[in-house]
Each structure stands twice: as structure tokens, then as C-alpha cells.
């Protein structure tokens, strides 16, 4: 389980060892009664034991939930709250505080363009404009076919390769319009 906590705005994708085949279909449907597999529950317990206060494991467990169910719905928040003996309001606090949890169903792929200083100077505004034109969406929206969600984000620590963006869990660097077109064509 290589650091669920390090995953950023990942799309709903099966991650080795975490997604129960039986619930894979649920990955995009975010069931009204979300449930982790026995394996996942064991992982939750392992993570909780790592911290003096079990709620320290809330962030990684929310990532597991996001990977499993696709996004963090209110039902998922309540389910996770139950795993920690927390009030759902406190899980909601965490989910709304951080930007890397999806509170709505994202597209199959998530593109996060850096708009911070280095990328901005290196042309991020035109990169974002190009993506908006190609995808036909505004920042924060998902294409109608559910293929791509477009986000603009703060620095992703790759200033040496500005302008850059993150596509799912890959960094794409030194962006040009042509490179973006090629990348978009490769996204199913």
C-alpha cells in the first residue's frame, strides 16, 4: 500500500490491494451504503494504529475511500465517521478543508494545471485557455462525456519544468499546445 496519503487528486482507479473486485463496479456509482472490504478494513485498522490518536489516520482512510468509491459523498463521510467513532460533521470538516478530496463525482481522468508563479510566468494562462477550448469546459467542470475533469491548482513542486500539470497521477511537464493535444488524444 505505497502511501495512500501521497496520492493526490486521483481518479477512481483500482489501486493494488485496495479495491475489492466485488465493489469495482461501485467505484463509479458511490453506493448509498458504502462498505469497505475485509482487506480494506484491516488496512484502516493498521493505519489507525500508527497514530497516538486514531483520527490521525483520517486522511489516508479518506483516500482509500476516494479510490474505492470514486469520490467522497456525504454517505461516504458518514461511513468513514463510523470507522473512527467520529461525528460525521468532523469528517465533513476535513473533507471540505482539503482540496484533494472530490465532493462530486470527477471525470475518468483529472487534469490539474499548475497556475502558481513559475508556471504562470511560463504560460500557464494560455495552457489553461487551450485546455478549456479543447475540452469545452470551465475550470472545475467535467466534460459531458465524463471523460475529463479540469482543475487549476497551486504549485506542484516541478517549477524546473514549467508550465506543467498533473494528469491523474502522472506529471506532464514543459507543456505546449501540441503536447496537450497529444495527451488528450491518449485519454480514454
Amino acid at each position, binding site marked *: 500500500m505505497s502511501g495512500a496519503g501521497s496520492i493526490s487528486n486521483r481518479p477512481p482507479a483500482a489501486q493494488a490491494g485496495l479495491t475489492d473486485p466485488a465493489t469495482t463496479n461501485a467505484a463509479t456509482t458511490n453506493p448509498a451504503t458504502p462498505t469497505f472490504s475485509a482487506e480494506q478494513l484491516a488496512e484502516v485498522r493498521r493505519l489507525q494504529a500508527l497514530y497516538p490518536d486514531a483520527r490521525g489516520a483520517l486522511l489516508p482512510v479518506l483516500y482509500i475511500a476516494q479510490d474505492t468509491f470514486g469520490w467522497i459523498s*456525504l454517505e461516504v*463521510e458518514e461511513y468513514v465517521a463510523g470507522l473512527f467513532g467520529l*461525528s*460525521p*460533521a*468532523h469528517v*465533513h*470538516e476535513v473533507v*471540505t*478543508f482539503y482540496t484533494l478530496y472530490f465532493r462530486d463525482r470527477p471525470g475518468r481522468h483529472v487534469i490539474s494545471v499548475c497556475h502558481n508563479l513559475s508556471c504562470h510566468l511560463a504560460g500557464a494562462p494560455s495552457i489553461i485557455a487551450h485546455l478549456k477550448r479543447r475540452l469545452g469546459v470551465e475550470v472545475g467542470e467535467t466534460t459531458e462525456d465524463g471523460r475529463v475533469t479540469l482543475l487549476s491548482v497551486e504549485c506542484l513542486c516541478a517549477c524546473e519544468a514549467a508550465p506543467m500539470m498533473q494528469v491523474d497521477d502522472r506529471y506532464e511537464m514543459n507543456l505546449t499546445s501540441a503536447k496537450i493535444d497529444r495527451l488528450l488524444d491518449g485519454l480514454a
Partner: protein
Amino acid sequence: MPKLTVDGKEVEVPGGTNLIEAARKAGVEVPHYCYHPGLSIAGQCRLCMVDLEKAPRPTIACNTTATEGMVVLTETDRVRETRKSIMEFHLINHPLDCPVCDQAGECWLQIYYMKHGLYDPRMTDEKVHKPKAVPLGPHVMLDAERCILCSRCVRFCDEITATGELGIFERGDHSEIGLFPGRALDNPYSGNVVDICPVGALTDRDFRFQVRVWYLDSAKSVCPGCARGCNIDVHVNRRRPHHAEGRRVARLKPRFNEAVNRWWLCDAGRYGFTFVDDQDRLLVPTRREGETVSDATWDDAIVALAATFRRSPPDEIGIIASPKMANEDLFALRRLLDNLALRRVAFRVPPRVAGDQDNFLIRADKNPNSLGAELVGLGGDSRAVLEAARARRLRCLVIFGHDLLASEWPEAEVREALGAVETVIFVGSNAHATSAAAHWVLPAAAWVERDGTYTNFEGRVQRFRPAVEPLGQALAEWEIVGRLLAALGVDSTATRPEHWFRQLVAAVPAFAGLSYQALGDGGRLLPGAVRA
């Protein structure tokens, strides 16, 4: 016990005391928003900054423990500047809607701005707007724009009720207090978040827009809602009666008592005062003959009652006293019983629905003075009195307050009992089915209209004081009984409840040594009482 100095005043405090409390002990108020002595430390508002000698920068007083030899300075230039800056931060997005804000007049943003702010605002940007007038539950209204995110309400729901309804959602200047979507702030103590909210973010749905707080008068009292006897302040509107359509009691607020309720009050008690100004209040003595009800004067009523008492053998007089009566009323009644040798006396009437109880404040016994009634010697369960009435063995029955027809007893049996008595006398504050069945109805003052004491379930005797005049011709029960005693030729010099209390103390050993002076504002445990 570390000794420290606060602004030059030396003070000794218990180990572990924080600097806000230590300063308070030295007579110095350190301004603060998020700190509350009944909740955990959040260190969130940053307003309680003080200077410590030899410390490089100001520090928050709430989260600093007093230590031996500490030198605390709360009024240095640096502290004043810091407070001013923090006030400016707190007010950056504040809507400044004081003219339409119910908190105005008791708002700590207003108070502290005048005391510690008084800066020229530098904010030129558009303010962040947030939801206004959002009902959070049956009793609490949220205005998220006015909130300074002190988190007192969140901590209250986490630490005191352990219900966790509230949270702070989003972040930065978009942070706002709220509920998990679809939930409500409906725990039995929800009204307390309004008390501890230092600003106008959480207001009381019942009280809001009734009357401006600067028109309120206040009296120290005790909640009559259950056997706990939470200490309260009764806030009444006597100066702007036209603002509230005759409603005089504006709100009840908990009054700190370490031994009883600390800072808190349950919602049932907080909102349980509506009977005081209700339309069904009894205002004048009335007499019913058949279906005809006519007003009477107190003199006529007392003379008629005395006559009834005189011509009835003691065995044919039944008295159902009430555990809602004050100790003074009960003792006056006891004097009557002793003089007439009445023995058919009781005070308990089982409620139709058993009272709820929790392990915090709420007690199942919804009467404020059951223990007092027991100690004064007014018997127990009233069933035997009712049965005597049903068996036509009573000529006269006096009922204090109880609605017997709404009790656990079968309604038909109660009706039969009431119908079998020649003279039924009801003494109480509000009309109901039982008062309607009485031949004489005597209006009694509500607890906020008079002086007296209750004995709570632990044996703590506590005083309540009048906040408003009795409605109509209502009189306190001790006075009604006193007039009856006088009419029966019993010498009674008691003209104030305190006189009755003195007689009670002299006559009932359980109350030995107590006096109004000794009770003070916080009450006293009966000498023999052992705290539960």
C-alpha cells in the same frame, strides 16, 4: 500553589490555572472570545495575548499555565497594539449589521471594539458573504457572516453533550460554522450554544426580535422545570411591553453555580416558562355554581373557604399539595394542617408520561421541590386522598396546581372523585381541566412573580426572587394559606416568605441553621444532605 503578579498585583492560584483565570483572580479582565472555562482550550481567537516578563513576544493567556514568580503584563503598548490588530482581523468580513442584529447590546464584538479596537478600518475589498438566518434546529438560528469561528459551540457539542452536530467547514476566509448536511442541532441542551456564542452568529429563535436586550431587567432565580434546580437569571421586559404583546418573561439564562448546573441549562427548562404569560393564567378568584362561573373577591373567597373548613370534620378535608410549591408555601400549609388536625394530605401525583432523565442535568422528577414537600411532612402519594374522595368520605378537597385529569390516574376515576366532593378548591396559576371542575378557583402567582425557596433532589435549598408583579389578583400560595389561617383565627404574623422560612427552620430539623442570608445566591445543602 504558584504565586505570580498580574499588572503588579500579586496573586496565588492553584497549580494548573491558566493566565485568564489567574488574572481574573487578581481583578484583571483579559479580553477573549474562544476561551470558556467550561470547555477545552482552543487558542483560536488570539485576543487574550498578554506580555510575560522576559518572554520575547506576547503569548495567549488561555493556553499559558501560571507558574511561580511569573510576571504578567496585560496593558503594555505591545499588548494593546496586538489586541487592536486582532480585533481588526476579526471584523474584516463582519457585516456590521448591528442595527438588525439581536445580539446588539450584549455582543462582545461591540464591547471589545469600543474597549480594545477603535482603529480606522483599512479594509477596502468586498467582504466575504455567507448564509444568514439559517435555522440550525428548533431553538438556534445561525448567521454565518457574524461568526468569528471561536468554535465554542463546536466544542460544546463535542465535549458537553457529546453529540458533535457542529463543525467548521471549508477554509480560510470561507470557513463557516455548520451542520453535517441533513442533520439538525436538536440535542436537549442546544440553547446553550446561544449563551456561549460571543457574537450574533447564534441567536435564540424564541427570543430574537422580541425586545432589545438593553430594555431587559433581570432577577436571580431557580428553574422550576425539574428536581435539579438549575440556577437561572429571569430576563423580563417591563420597559417595552408593547414590543412583545404582553409577554413579560423574555428569556431564561443559566446562572453559574459550580455545585448545580455550572454554566448550563437544558432546553426544556430554558423554554418552559411560557405558562407565566399564557392566556390560560388565572387572574381573579372565581366561584362555580353548576355551570355558572362568577368572579369573587379574595375576601369573599377566604371567608367562604374558612366556613367550609369550619363545618367539615378534619377527616373529611383532603389536601393535595404540590411539589411545585415553595418551601414557604408548604410550611404555611403545614401550619394549617397542624392547627386543624388534618391528616388526609399528600403531594405526589404520578405524571401520565414518565419524565426523561439523563446523566447530566435533566431529572425524571419534573418538580422543583419534591424533597422540600417530603421534608415539610406533607405525605406522599395522593392516591389515598383521591380514593377517599371517590368513596364519598370527603366534604372538601383542596388541590394545589395539579391537573389530576392529566395524571396517570384514569380520567373517569378522577372525575368520579371530583364529583363526589361537596367543595373542590383549586389553587394554581393556570387553568386546566381540573381547575374547571373545581367550585372555587384561587389564582396563584407564578414562580417568577414571587419570592421563595426550593429544595432540590440533592437537598440544596435555593432561593428564587420576583422578576415581575403577579398577574391580575394572583397571590403566592403562602399568602393564600396565610389569609385562610387568619380567617380561621390562627395567629400568623408571617407577612413575607422569609418569615415562613424562619418558622420552617425552627420547626423542621432537616432545615436547621438555614436562613435566607445563609442561602445567598448559590443555595445551601441541608445540614444532613449527602451530595449524590
